[in-house]
């Protein structure tokens, strides 16, 4: 893939206090139509990396570029280029499921006709048709997570940042999500996905970035990760175990 990357994270160092960075020289790219898995132990820096990409944190050094734009130069275009699904659903209690979708579509400047088609399809795909007019405060955690996912997919930006999307989802929801992510990928969208369920994402992601203690310790395709871990042909879970144990 020789196209311009959708996402470029360039020598990113950052964290919550200047003296104690959590991330150290993080460098990776996500190409158009690529699904990349960001994996690491708890506290490895996955969510902090995502927060930097979203612009919720300011890098100490380095930066993030989305479709050739930085957040400081073009904040609105930058923000419109990505959709985020957080680990814990963040919804407006006073909005119904349908209204969340409409708000997201309006915010991302989706045509009304496209919104109607997309929302209908997403509600069906995630088995949320019956709950479409329920206030989000009355939904279960899994359903809230589905609403977050649907809001991201109704927008259709070039880049999706998805943090632990499978938490709380039922098996049907997980399958629907994975299938839809593949469809988005095939249509040219890029996905940066973090998850601990390595056996699931192993078959879906094109490449993986292994974060450990705030540093990238390996990145590449499954085969390349296997070579870097010294366990070619093994399952991702085994490679990951070897990599992080080696770093201890």
């Amino acid at each position, binding site marked *: 893939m020789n196209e311009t990357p959708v996402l470029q994270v360039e020598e990113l160092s950052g964290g919550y206090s200047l003296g104690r960075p959590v991330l150290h020289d993080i460098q990776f790219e996500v190409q158009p139509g690529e699904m990349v898995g960001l994996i690491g132990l708890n506290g490895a820096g996955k969510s902090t990396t995502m927060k930097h990409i979203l612009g919720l944190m300011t890098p100490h050094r380095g930066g993030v570029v989305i479709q050739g734009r930085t957040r400081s130069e073009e904040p609105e275009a930058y923000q419109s280029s990505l959709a985020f699904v957080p680990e814990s659903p963040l919804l407006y209690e006073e909005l119904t499921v349908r209204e969340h979708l409409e708000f997201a579509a*309006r915010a991302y400047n989706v045509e009304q006709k496209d919104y109607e088609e997309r929302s209908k399809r997403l509600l069906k795909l995630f088995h949320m048709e019956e709950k479409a007019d329920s206030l989000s405060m009355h939904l279960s955690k899994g359903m809230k997570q589905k609403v977050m996912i649907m809001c991201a997919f109704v927008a259709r930006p070039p880049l999706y940042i998805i943090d632990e999307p499978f938490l709380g989802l039922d098996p049907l929801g997980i399958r629907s999500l994975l299938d839809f992510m593949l469809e988005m990928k095939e249509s040219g969208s890029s996905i940066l996905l973090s998850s601990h369920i390595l056996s699931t994402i192993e078959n879906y992601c094109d490449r993986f970035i292994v974060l450990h203690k705030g540093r990238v310790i390996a990145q590449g395709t499954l085969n390349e990760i296997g070579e870097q871990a010294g366990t070619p042909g093994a399952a991702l879970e085994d490679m990951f175990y070897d990599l992080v144990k080696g770093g201890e």
Partner: protein
Amino acid sequence: MELRTLRSRRKSSFWGQIIPYLPYVFQSGVAVVLLILCIVFSAWYTSFLQALPPDLPIRWIMLLLLGPLTVYSGFRTYVQPADVIFLLPQESKMKQYLSPAYFSGVIYKLLGLYLVTIVAWPMYIRTGEATVPLWAMLLVLLLLKVLSAYGAWQELRIATSRARNGYRLLRWCFILLMLAAWIWLPDWWKSLLFMLLLSANYILALRFPMKHAVPWDSLIANEKAGAARTMMILGWFVEIPAEGQKVVRRRWLSMAGNRIPWKQGTSYRYLLTKTFVRSELLGIITRLGLLGMLVLYWTGDSWLGAAVYVFFLFMIGTQLSTLRYVHRDSPAASYYPIMQGVRIKEVIRLITRMLLILAVILWLPLLEASAAGSESALLFSIGGLAAGLLLVLVLRSNWNRKWSELEEDE
């Protein structure tokens, strides 16, 4: 830790966050305006008492003044979501924790009720309709207040929301009926007997619905709404976030906002409109508007009518200004692409429109009074409207300046 001590610590911690703001409340312009209004009200009330209209519907006035205050019951339990995990094992001992909440709920609200009763009492006495002494009135109000608080507490325990709403309606009906009987019936013993029979029936009716031993979910939701209400009141005076307020479904208003033009620039307007129609704020504004119309109905044909009109518009404007804090720290601010400067613009737009609509609605009693009255009434009516519209413009320009400066600082 003892459960009673835990509640008391939580209470201190909550009010510990509020107290530092109080000096700012006293310094704020709104507090001064309220003080001036108190003085103006005292002057007007004194002159009103000296020349009471002969056909004053005093019984209705007493019922309207005392009824809602007698029925209204709320409790601050300071319960937290994590209590479902950590206090649930001690559920059988929760009485220790919750009984202070019940008593404080009654005592503080009773103080407000007594204040209004004592202020209204001279008016009641002077009309010659009072059939009982003040102490008897205060005693009956105490009993009704305790009964209403008991009912409200049982409602919290009721398992289904439909039954809970039904019993809330029942409580309003029972308590208002008893208070009306006390005010209207000439023989106090007959009123008392009627009230006793009604109370017995009400208490009996409360035994029927299915209830939780400790209604954890209701208590947590109630506490969240109670804390948010306190913060919202504080927000009238000082800059604080107004989050966590109760959401009211209002299905009949679910169409609101759907016709907003489909453009990226209006996405925040859509969110704000939906939030407003399901907020407690809309209920507060409606109640304030109705109260204003009622007061204006009586005072509409004098200079006082025009003053009351401007006062109510100012109060409504102050309440609406809390919309500024809605969604300030919410996901919309960071996750959705909302254009810069749009949020303040949309908040001011919504508040101004609401204020203009209410300026017209509140003016209707003044118009009605001027249509039936003298030339001076017409003058007060038109003058009042002009002053009201001017106030809306002044408030709008003030918010524009102040909030834009604050947004630049943030």
